[in-house]
C-alpha cells in the first residue's frame, strides 16, 4: 500500500537525468543557433538603441513638447495635457529623466512590435475557428506562466541585454491585443456584414471597409492593455539588462532604499496613467458615430 500514501514518482536519478537532457538539448540548440538568432535580432537592437539615444540626447524641452503634441493629438483634452506637463516636469526635477526616457523608448518599441504582430494574428484568429483553437491555449500559457520562467530560455539564447528584455516584455504584453482584435472582429454586427455581402464586397473589402473600422474601439482597448502590461513588465525586464526605471527599483529592493523605490515606482505609475488616459480618450473619439455623431 506504499503507492497509496506516497505518490509513485520517478526515481530521483531518472528525474535528474531527464532534466539534464532537456537542459543539454537546449544548450546545444543555443550553441548551434544562438549566434544566428542574435544576428536575426540585430536590426531590432540597432533600432532600439537609436530610438533610446534619440529620447535621451534630444534636449528635454523638445521631448516634452513632442509628448504634449502626441497627448493633444490623442486626447484633445486640456486636463490631460496639463497633467502630462506637470508629471514630466516633476519626473525630471527628481532626477529620473534619463531612466524615464529609456523606459519610454522600450515601451514604444515593444508596443509597436506587439501591434504589428498581434493585429494580424487576431485577424487570422477571427477568420478561422481552427486558428483560434490553436492560438488561444498559447495565449493562455503566455499570460499565466510566471515571467521569470521564460526569462531563463530567453537569456540562455540571447544573453543579457536589451533585445532579450524586449522579447520578454512582448511575450508578456502581446496577448491582450491579439485577443481583443479577434473579439472585436467577431463581434461586428452580422446584419451589417450581410449587407456588405449583398452589395458584393469581397473578403478584403469587408475586412478593411467594415470589420476593422467597427472593431477599432475594441482593438484600441487591446492596445491600451498592451501598453499597460508592457509597463508592468519594466521592472522584471530590468533583471536581464534593460535600462530604465526598473533598474533603480531593482536596486532599491536589494538594498532596501525606500525613497528610491517609491520615486521610480511612482514614475512608472505616472507614465501608465498618461498612456492610459491618452489612448482611452483616443479610443472614445474613434467611436463618436456610436452616440450622436458629435465630437
Amino acid at each position, binding site marked *: 500500500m506504499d503507492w497509496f500514501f506516497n505518490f509513485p514518482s520517478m526515481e530521483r536519478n531518472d528525474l535528474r537525468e531527464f532534466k539534464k537532457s532537456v537542459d543539454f538539448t537546449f544548450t546545444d540548440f543555443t550553441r548551434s543557433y544562438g549566434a544566428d538568432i542574435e544576428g536575426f535580432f540585430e536590426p531590432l537592437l540597432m533600432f532600439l538603441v537609436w530610438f533610446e539615444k534619440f529620447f535621451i540626447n534630444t534636449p528635454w524641452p523638445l521631448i516634452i513638447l513632442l509628448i504634449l503634441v502626441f497627448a493633444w493629438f490623442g486626447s484633445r483634452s486640456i486636463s490631460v495635457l496639463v497633467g502630462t506637463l506637470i508629471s514630466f516636469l516633476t519626473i525630471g526635477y527628481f532626477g529620473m529623466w534619463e531612466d524615464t526616457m529609456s523606459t519610454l523608448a522600450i515601451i514604444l518599441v515593444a508596443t509597436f512590435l506587439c501591434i504589428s504582430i498581434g493585429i494580424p494574428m487576431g485577424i487570422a484568429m477571427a477568420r478561422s475557428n481552427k486558428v483560434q483553437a490553436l492560438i488561444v491555449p498559447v495565449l493562455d500559457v503566455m499570460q499565466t506562466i510566471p515571467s521569470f520562467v521564460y526569462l531563463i530560455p530567453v537569456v540562455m539564447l540571447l544573453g543579457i541585454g536589451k533585445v532579450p528584455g524586449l522579447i520578454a516584455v512582448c511575450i508578456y504584453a502581446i496577448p491582450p491585443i491579439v485577443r481583443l482584435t479577434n473579439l472585436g472582429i467577431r463581434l461586428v454586427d452580422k446584419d*451589417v456584414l*450581410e*449587407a456588405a*455581402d*449583398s*452589395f*458584393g*464586397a469581397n473578403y478584403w473589402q469587408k475586412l478593411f471597409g467594415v470589420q476593422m473600422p467597427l472593431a477599432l474601439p475594441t482593438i484600441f482597448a487591446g492596445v491600451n492593455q498592451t501598453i499597460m502590461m508592457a509597463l508592468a513588465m519594466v521592472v522584471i525586464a530590468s533583471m536581464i539588462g534593460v535600462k530604465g526605471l526598473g533598474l533603480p527599483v531593482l536596486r532599491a529592493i536589494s538594498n532596501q532604499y525606500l525613497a528610491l523605490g517609491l520615486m521610480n515606482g511612482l514614475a512608472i505609475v505616472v507614465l501608465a496613467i498618461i498612456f492610459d488616459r491618452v489612448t482611452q480618450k483616443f479610443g472614445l473619439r474613434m467611436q463618436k*458615430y456610436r452616440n450622436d455623431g458629435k465630437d
Partner: protein
Amino acid sequence: MSKDDILIKVNQLYKIFGDNTNEALNLVKDGMGKDELLEKCNCVLGLNKINLDIRKAKIQVVMGLSGSGKSTLIRHLNRLIEPTSGEILVNNQDILSLSQKELIQFRQNNMSMVFQKFALFPHKTVLQNVGYETYYPGQLSGGMQQRVGLARALATDAEILLMDEAFSALDPLIRSEMQNILLDLQNELHKTIIFITHDLDEALKIGDRIAILRDGSMVQDSDPQKIIMQPADDYVSDFIKDINRARVIQAKSIMTPTNSKSTGPVVQENMVLEDILQIMSDSPSKPVTIENTKGKITGKIEMTNLIEGMKRPKSQGTNITG
C-alpha cells in the same frame, strides 16, 4: 404562363438546414413534413419545392408569418444562402453556377438589398453610405435611416431590388409614407422588386403579385385581387379575414362581364368597392357600368354583386397559382 417577361425564375427550390441534408432532402421529396423532419433528422425544412416566376419591372411580394421561409427565399436570390437543391435563373442565367468571383460581380451589378434593421454601415456618414449629407446613421430616425438604406440600394443602379421586411420596423405613419415613396420611385425607375412582408395591407398596397409562404411551402401565388376573392386554402382565408374588403377589392373582381352599357354611372374597373358604394347609394337600383383604362366597357355591377363581394369567400382547395 403570362405575357409579361419573366426576369427571375425559381425552379423546384429546396433548402434544408442541418447536417446530412441529402438524406433529409429525399425524405422531404417523399412528402415528409416540417415537424416530422425536425424530429427524425434534426434538420429544419427552410424551403419546400418552391416554384416562383418573378416578372420584370413588377413588384413581387412574398408574404408569410415568422418562420415561413420568406427571408430564406429572398436570400437565395443573391445567394447569401445556398440552396440544398433546385435552380434559380436570373435573365436565363443559372446563378447557382456562378463562381465566387462572378457572384461578387453579380451582386455588385444586378441586385441590391434593403434590410429590416437597415444594416447601414454605422462608421460611415450618410454621404459615404450613399452619397448625401454628412450625418452618421446613429443620428437619424428609423424612417430617415431606411431612406438611406433605400438610397444605398438604388445607388448601385441594379435592376433587381430585394427588400427584406424593409418597412416592418417603422411606425405606421412613416411606413405608409415609405410605401408611397417606393411606389413613386417604382413609377419612374421600373425596377424588379422582391418585397418581403408579413403585413397583408402592405402587400395589397404595393404588390403586383403576391406569393404566400407557409412552413417553407408556397401556398398561393397570384394577383392580389385573386388572393382576396379566391384564397387557395384555409391558411390564406385566415390571413385575409381581417382586412377591410371594401377598401381593397376592385370593380373588375366582382363585375358581371358584359360590353353593353348599363343604366347607372360609369366607373373605372380598378375602383374599390367602398367608392362604388358611395356612387351607387344615390340610386341603388341602377347597375353601374364598368370600363377599363382604355375606356372600353367591360362589365356591370349591381348592388347584389357588391354585397356578394364583401362576403368572406371560402378557400378554393388545390389551385395555388393563377
